[in-house]
């Protein structure tokens, strides 16, 4: 008998920023062991939702349970249960690759022996072990991405959040990483919650998909169900049929501006 448990439950979740409603009364369930793709155009509310699930942002209203705990009230229990790879960089540039991993492992309370072994394992997996003692600021975008993915897995989380994890990665690396994530999903039952703009990637990896637009979930189901629903051949066409073809505004990259600014000040 198959008893499927919900590991993420979201009910009537809402987030306002002043007048603007970023997430508008959404409800969904992610089952344990699922690979769940959360799709939507730029500015649809994906990242805001992830932030509310991962204790980084307080919801305006609604209820959330992550691994049975409430991210507002039981923050540390929730924090223990997930790993996350953020959309934008979250490494310390001034530390080496290994130090970034070690820092993470210690913060998550992974015992030393296990920690050291996993760090090596993960860094070898993303092929950065050879460069473990280099400062992260000398890494390329793709290498940083790989390191962040490796870091998110050091503490073997029950849930892995990936916010556009494969952005800027070549197809080889993308496949390599997805193979590993799928392996963890199968062998350890790790639930994966990810966002992506590559519909092909979503179609290939996800068991279930939800499409969010203008803060509302407009469709949910397996990739095949979505294709049937919209009568399209591919998930990309289904996505376009659901969300329309207009191009959305994206937030200005203040961080990028700042990065350049900082560079101007160095040497």
């Amino acid at each position, binding site marked *: 008998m198959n008893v499927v448990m919900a590991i993420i439950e979201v009910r009537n979740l809402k987030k306002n920023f002043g007048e603007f409603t970023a997430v508008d009364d959404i409800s969904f369930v992610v089952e344990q062991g699922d690979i769940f793709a959360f799709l939507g155009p730029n500015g649809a509310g994906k990242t805001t939702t992830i*932030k509310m699930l*991962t*204790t*980084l*942002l*307080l919801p305006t209203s609604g209820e959330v349970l992550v691994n049975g705990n409430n991210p507002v009230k039981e923050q*540390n*229990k929730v*924090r*223990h249960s*997930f790993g*996350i790879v*953020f959309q*934008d*960089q*979250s*490494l*310390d*540039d*001034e*530390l080496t690759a290994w*130090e970034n991993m*070690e*820092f*993470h492992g*210690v*913060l*998550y*309370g992974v015992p030393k022996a296990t920690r050291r072994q996993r760090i090596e394992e993960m860094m070898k997996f993303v092929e950065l072990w050879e460069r473990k003692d280099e*400062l992260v600021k000398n890494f390329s975008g793709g290498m940083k991405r790989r390191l962040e993915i490796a870091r998110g897995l050091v503490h073997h989380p029950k849930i892995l959040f990936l916010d556009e994890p494969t952005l800027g990665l070549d197809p080889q690396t993308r496949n390599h990483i997805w193979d590993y994530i799928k392996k963890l999903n199968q062998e350890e039952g790790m639930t994966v919650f990810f966002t992506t703009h590559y519909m092909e990637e979503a179609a290939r990896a996800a068991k279930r998909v939800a499409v969010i637009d203008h803060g509302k979930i407009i469709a949910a189901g397996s990739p095949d169900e979505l294709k049937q629903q919209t009568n399209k051949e591919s998930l990309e066409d289904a996505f376009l049929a659901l969300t329309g073809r207009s191009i959305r505004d994206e937030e200005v990259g*203040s*961080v990028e501006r*700042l*990065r350049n600014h900082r560079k101007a000040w*160095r*040497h």
Partner: protein
Amino acid sequence: MKVIYILWLRQIKRYLRSKPRMIGSLGQPLLFLLALGFGFGPIYQKAGEGNYLQFIGPGVIAMAIIFTAIFTGIEIIWDRQFGFLKETLVAPSSRFEIMIGRTLGGATVATLQGVVVLLMTLVVGFRPTNILLLPLGLVFMLLTALVFTALGTAIATQLQDMQAFPIIMNFLIMPIFFLSGALFPLESFPEAVVLATRINPLVYGVDGLRGSLVQGAHLGLVNDFFILGLITLALLALGSYLFSKIEV
């Protein structure tokens, strides 16, 4: 404990790796020491107050400490801008531990910087009167560093970017520094002003440091010690509360 240690270690490593910052932050105290020390020295002497270098020595050490401390505290803003803050925020560790680790790290860095400036003052001609009290001087340096790292961190939790930084510098840090007794005695001010300066934590830092290096603590070393200690604890508590409220 491990969490505190790793956060402490991070601050130290970042400091040791940024040589320009290390050298750059020595420039200001050195300038004050030389320009004011030799510029005002004769006037101070004529006024019958004795050797100005002996007076300003502890002052410039305190200066190096508070500026470095505020800067390392305020580094949280950089962490926020460059994304690393999120990594700390989603971690299942207590906010108080994170705050303590950061503050200890920043304060260690500021104290090291203070020690370097102490060595510089020795080269220029500053002479501590009692070598045995040097360790006590170090204690006051560390306490001062703790207060201002915690203050910088607490302020930084409330800021989105560096835009407000000049305001903090000009309306908080500069007044704190100039009204601390670091560069000139406060006693010549009107009594009301002297009383008002008693809310300035740096007054106790400078007084304690001066008391241990060259004697002449006005407020009493024991008072200085406990007041600085209390302010540190209060700011740490406030800081970790504010830290736990950060949303990104």
